[in-house]
């Protein structure tokens, strides 16, 4: 079993135009920087991207939007990106906005082998249009389908050659959920360690979910809103 890839270019080399990608991260926190750079370089187009946010103008998925590589964006919040807004208003970009918990749980369902979930989020709103509503114990729930993505691309803090992953702080967010949900899951890690170095009791993503792993380089880890207190 060899899951080890040389670098991001190597790990994304077979991603094709028109495929569906999941990208981990919340805002710019925990995003797969190396793979995004490689996808921009590779210039694949007409992608459907599932990610909580769409980056900012010059970082994260924003870099792929600039190159017009994204046909459809599935996200919960896209507020920080002027190029995104331009493409959306001009009709170049298709956008599906879904509640954040629904997004997370649809990833989880895929990884848990469940075809759909029921959630109260969006009942009675335009999110419910065209969806099956089921009443359980007197409360209405929407049926939402598990995702079906060609690739899940995630970023972890530490990983081993088996693909076991550990995330750092709130950079965990959607990463372990998407890692479970890709037909092929690519993990970039800040630290690649030898098998046996990670304590099995503290693994967040078991290696069975991860197909490719590589050590990322030159992480910028940009902060979207630096807020500090005086003392």
């Amino acid at each position, binding site marked *: 079993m060899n899951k080890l890839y040389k670098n991001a270019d190597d790990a994304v080399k077979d991603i094709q135009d028109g495929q569906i990608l999941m990208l981990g991260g*919340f*805002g*710019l*926190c*925990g995003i797969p920087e190396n793979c995004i750079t490689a996808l921009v370089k590779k210039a694949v187009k007409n992608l459907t991207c599932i990610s*909580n946010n769409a980056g900012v103008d010059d970082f994260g998925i924003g870099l792929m939007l600039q190159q017009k590589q994204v046909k459809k964006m599935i*996200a*919960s*919040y*896209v*507020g920080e990106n002027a190029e995104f*807004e331009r493409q*959306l*208003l001009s009709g170049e970009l298709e956008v599906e*906005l879904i*509640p*954040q*918990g*629904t*997004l*997370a*749980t649809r*990833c*989880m369902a895929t990884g848990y082998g469940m075809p759909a979930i029921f*959630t*109260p*989020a*969006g*009942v*009675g*709103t*335009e*999110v419910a249009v065209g969806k099956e509503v089921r009443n359980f114990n007197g409360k209405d729930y929407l049926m939402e389908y598990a995702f079906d993505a060609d690739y899940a691309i995630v970023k972890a*803090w530490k990983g081993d050659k088996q693909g076991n992953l550990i995330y*750092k*702080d*709130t*950079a*965990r*967010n*959607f*990463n*372990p*959920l998407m890692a479970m949900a890709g037909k092929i899951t690519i993990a970039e890690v800040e630290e690649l360690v030898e098998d046996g170095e990670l304590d099995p009791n503290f693994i*967040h993503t078991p290696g069975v979910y991860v197909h490719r792993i590589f050590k990322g380089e030159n992480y910028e*880890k*940009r*902060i*979207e*809103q*630096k*807020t*500090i*207190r*005086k*003392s």
Partner: protein
Amino acid sequence: MALNKFQIAQRIAKELQDGFYVNLGIGIPTLVANYIPLGIDVVLQSENGLLGMGPFPIEGEESADLINAGKQTITTLPASSIFDSAMSFGMIRSGKINLTVLGAMEVSEHGDIANWKIPGKMVKGMGGAMDLVASAKNIIVAMMHTNPAGESKLLKKCSLPLTGTNCVKKIVTDIAVVEITASGFKLLERAPGVSVEEIMSKTAANLIVEGSIPEMKF
């Protein structure tokens, strides 16, 4: 005198009870954290995956890996915990979070809330708001009583696309504390120096007023 946003946050903080797990939305709700009463132990949840949110870091100790749902750098506290986004909304959906405070553009007398979309304008998305309002047991809205054009944000029926239905329990505005009852809006308190008549004139729905209405205390 109408309250400023800090005073609205201060009034909402009085709703906190010892042992509450609380989710604070972006804007005025975030400020509530500054007014947690002494002797009251509350745990703040940030829906990107943190329970036990601490204050902003001091210069030099900020980390790109540690942010809140508003994408601001924050810190953890002793006994904080970190989890993925599905578990985060799992604890929201299953009713473990005792109180949610969020902002709104409109609230109806039935407790419907609209706070995510203005048709014809750029749509930023609902983020976690729809999950929160669909599940939280106790939802308090923090907002100005009227919009910048002077129109009431408390309405018989929301005109904007809804975030959730029949969910808001209480509204704290710059001039009033209003409860949402089965019969509609009920005035509980008024801002110091603001008359019941003024509140009624700025509320575009029936406002139940029973007896004399006390001024807010801080």
